[in-house]
């Protein structure tokens, strides 16, 4: 590996494998799944079998081994070539739900939960956001009160990816006082008395993922399901966010990349006023701006990943990457629709979906404004 190249031969092989997985199992059906608002559960199984879900997790749980972030990025880029951010978010919800369990859950709980999720037999989701607020995590309200060898949980969560179908939920709850020092993470399982899942939420984009509200009505959760120390959940949530934001940046530049590729192809063949649309200087310059956005977003994200790989904690850089990449993605997908003319507004063209899927990226995993607050703090402002 030369030092201008982040990807090794193994990464390229994994990429090739993921490309084939997408071509064989996803692309032939993705338009239907988007319209149906769901992909078959079987796909988790197939992805698990191919080893795609286990990237970055310890081998003893069926994973590929820890500490190779560029392997994760290579495979994610290829999965995003399915053209469906929703599918990738749904299939990937384990990546925000499992890390705290792997790192901090009791061994009995961890050994029971993690291998099944990595094999695609079970689905995991992360539940932090509440109807009253998502940005201000430190003020969350869902309460968990210790009662003997159980917690009694009351409250609700919303906008939870894979929320309808998940078997395991990593839930942020308040076990202590006001503020971030009173928050814990609890593993709550589907079917626990007092836990119910609301309706499937209809969304602007990410159609192929199921997004739900969750209700806890005096829900009795075994105390052994506590993840880590009581009242130490906030740090775990924040640590988890770093990776989620990096992956959202990957999603953003790949969504933009696909929109750019589609636009290059379309404008080279579409004719207006006696020449190709790409033949107008104004179009060429637009395509150049789009390509510049994609490249900068991608390279800066790689830089962040390299810092994380080197065990730095690049909070500021990752927040910048997320903001830059998600805004670049919005610019690029907008122009892509524009360059497609009326066809860009039609569901049959891929840019229509990419444009809708772009919007969530600046909201989920911490909004652009919250990223700016983080960066400001890191800058000592």
């Amino acid at each position, binding site marked *: 590996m030369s030092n201008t190249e982040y990807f090794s031969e193994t990464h390229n*092989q994994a990429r*090739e*494998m993921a490309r*084939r997985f997408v071509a064989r199992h996803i692309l032939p059906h993705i338009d239907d799944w988007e319209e149906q608002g769901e992909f078959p559960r079987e796909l988790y199984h197939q992805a698990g079998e*191919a*080893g*795609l879900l286990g990237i970055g997790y310890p081998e003893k749980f069926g994973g*590929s081994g820890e500490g190779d972030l560029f392997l994760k990025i290579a495979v994610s880029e290829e999965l995003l070539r399915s053209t469906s951010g929703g599918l990738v978010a749904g299939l990937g919800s384990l990546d925000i739900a499992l890390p705290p369990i792997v790192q901090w859950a009791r061994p009995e709980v961890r050994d029971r939960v993690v291998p099944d999720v990595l094999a695609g037999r079970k689905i995991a989701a992360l539940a932090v956001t509440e109807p009253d607020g998502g940005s201000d995590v430190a003020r969350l309200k869902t309460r968990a009160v210790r009662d003997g060898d159980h917690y009694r949980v009351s409250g609700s969560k919303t906008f939870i990816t894979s929320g309808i179908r998940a078997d395991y939920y990593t839930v942020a709850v308040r076990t202590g006082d006001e503020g971030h020092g009173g928050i814990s993470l609890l593993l709550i399982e589907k079917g626990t008395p007092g836990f119910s899942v609301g309706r499937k939420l209809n969304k602007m984009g990410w159609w192929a993922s199921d997004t739900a509200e969750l209700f806890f009505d005096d829900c009795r959760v075994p105390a052994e399901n506590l993840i880590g120390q009581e009242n130490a959940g906030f740090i775990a949530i924040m640590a988890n966010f770093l990776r989620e934001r990096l992956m959202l940046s990957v999603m953003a530049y790949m969504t933009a990349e696909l929109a750019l590729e589609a636009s290059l192809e379309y404008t080279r063949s579409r004719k207006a006023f006696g020449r190709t649309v790409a033949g107008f200087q104004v179009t060429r310059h637009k395509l150049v701006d789009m390509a510049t956005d994609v490249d900068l977003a991608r390279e800066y994200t790689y830089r962040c990943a390299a810092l994380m790989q080197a065990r730095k904690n690049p909070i500021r850089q990752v927040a910048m990457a997320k903001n830059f990449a998600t805004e670049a993605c919005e610019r690029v997908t907008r122009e892509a629709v524009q360059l497609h003319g009326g066809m860009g507004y039609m569901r049959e063209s891929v840019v229509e979906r990419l444009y809708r899927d772009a919007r969530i990226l600046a909201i989920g995993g911490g909004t652009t404004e919250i990223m700016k607050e983080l960066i400001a703090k890191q800058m000592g402002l």
Partner: protein
Amino acid sequence: MKVLVAVKRVIDYNVKVRVKPDNTGVDLANVKMAMNPFCEIAVEEAVRLKEKGVATEIVVVSIGPKAAQEQIRTALALGADRGIHIETDEEVQSLQAAKLLKAVVDKEEPKLVILGKQSIDTDNNQTGQMLAALAGMPQGTFASEVVVDGDKVNVTREVDGGLVTVQLNLPAVVTTDLRLNEPRYASLPNIMKAKKKPLDTQSPADLGVDLTPRLTTLKVEAPQTRKAGIKVGSVEELVDKLKNEAKVI
């Protein structure tokens, strides 16, 4: 039974190739490379034979630059047991490839050698046949089905107008056609495991083969671009044009 599979590194089939401006060949700079699709089918067939308990060891061999090790690793990830890389940056023509493979066959003594019927770069469709001749082994080319039966192998071949099944005594050479199987993709754990499988590197000189080309390429040209079609208004017009312009009826 030991199976030897030959794989070749070629331009990925998705790439639209461009001819170099000086017409000496195809531009390979920054072009995505991959395993020849027919070779993938060969690897898949060997792996299936192993899964059935027919093959006990799969050795995969590739001739080419250092980077050809990627294709060997891919084959190892798909289920081959060990690799042999014959490293050279020289041009390797079919006859020289066949001679190199013959040297490997002499050393490894496989019962079955599986190759792609052709590689999609130069489409020669020769190496398997040449290897069979040099090694004095029977050949079953363009296989759409391969059934090993004791010390024989039945190879169903796709020929114009139908299928022919030939029975060969082992050891034998088989070349694969497109419909023999649908190759799997490697799982991630197998990609990881493949990194630890043995890969032996040799040079053409080690095997006593001279790579001097016997053929000279005079010129490589892109195929003529098709002219745009036209729309005709009626059947009469179509017939008229076919008769008087295209002069085909």
